[in-house]
């Protein structure tokens, strides 16, 4: 059951073709993460491999359909944007709320990292100025 693939063979990552131009879809791309995820959501600690494979297929198909729909919406603007996705899931409250939460957390993280870096810069400059002072004073 291959959504968009001509032939889906079990290719390891780093195979010949880059995925952008290849029609083959590597299998087991999300396998490891999916296992943990399924366990977290209520499955066995070791989910069946066929369940994981099926889940991966379903998820890839879901994402594909979602992206196609978003592209239909966003085609007016020309580019695909995050708002298209948010519009698509507007009726699904859990997803919508989660996404807004994620996005705002991402923003906060960015601000925090920026603040951290500027502070480090200031400290480093102060430190170096100190060092220079000491050197000139001891000469």
């Amino acid at each position, binding site marked *: *059951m*291959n*959504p968009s693939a001509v032939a889906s063979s079990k290719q390891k990552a780093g195979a010949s073709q880059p*995925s*952008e131009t290849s029609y083959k879809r590597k299998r087991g*791309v*999300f396998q490891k*993460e999916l*296992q*943990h*995820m*399924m*366990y*977290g*959501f*209520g*499955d*066995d*600690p*070791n*989910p*069946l491999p*066929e*369940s994981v494979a*099926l*889940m991966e297929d*379903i998820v890839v198909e*879901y*994402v594909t*359909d*979602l*992206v*196609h*729909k978003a*592209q239909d919406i966003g085609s007016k603007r020309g*580019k*695909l944007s*995050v708002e298209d*996705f*948010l519009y*698509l*899931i507007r009726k699904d*409250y*859990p*997803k919508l709320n*989660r*996404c*807004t*939460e*994620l*996005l*705002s*957390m*991402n923003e*906060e*993280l960015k601000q*925090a990292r920026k603040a*951290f870096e500027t*502070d480090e810069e200031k*400290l480093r400059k102060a430190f170096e100025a100190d060092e220079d002072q000491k050197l000139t004073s001891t000469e």
Partner: protein
Amino acid sequence: MEGKKLTKQQSKDPFEAAFEEEQQQQQQQQQHQDDDYDSPPASPAPPPPPLPNIISNSESIPNPPPEENDDGDDDNTVLPVVISGDPSSSSSLSAVPANSTAPSLPSSSRGAHKTHRDDNEEEEEEEHMEVELDKFPSSADPDKMAKMQAILSQFTEEQMSRYESFRRAGFQKSNMKRLLTSITGTQKISIPMTIVVSGIAKIFVGELVETARIVMSERKESGPVRPCHIREAYRRLKLEGKVPKRSVPRLFR
């Protein structure tokens, strides 16, 4: 909480300090391996005051697990109580929690889990950080946090490990980005877009697994979830309209 945090942050990386504080807040039933966090990093810079308490752990941004069977619309923006939920992780940046080697636990407590779970569980899919903000400015709810703490303190070990998995599991950003690029063609995929799609996909997986579990209980089966359950769950979700329909039927499957 804050006072403790500030004193610790003198000589430590803010991430480690915040994480360590998290660890202390964790219930003592978990074994802590805090020692790894006690050694100060090489960087001498104290963290800037306005930094929210960020813990970088592994992947996901936590998602507020539903309490008391509350339904999805409720307060999903509240930042959950910071639980990095990983008592046994020894490295602050390890991507995979120790429960990858978890022994197969009896499925009896799964029923208890289901009452805790809800459809709005998801985890963030940032591959390098699990971020837990102690106080999320607009949606902090000390009440909720207290409730969460109360619930978490009563978790059994199996529940805790499952919860940890739930919080930390997430799609790799790189893989998702590759997938998105291959779907859209040549478009450039921004980071927020991968974050959003990964989050949506994770909730979708959650819905599928939960519905599959419901199917299993209806058929009075037990054990790991089998593909037939997943297929039935998928069919039900389609009926509910949670799965986007293809405008063009897929041929030549």
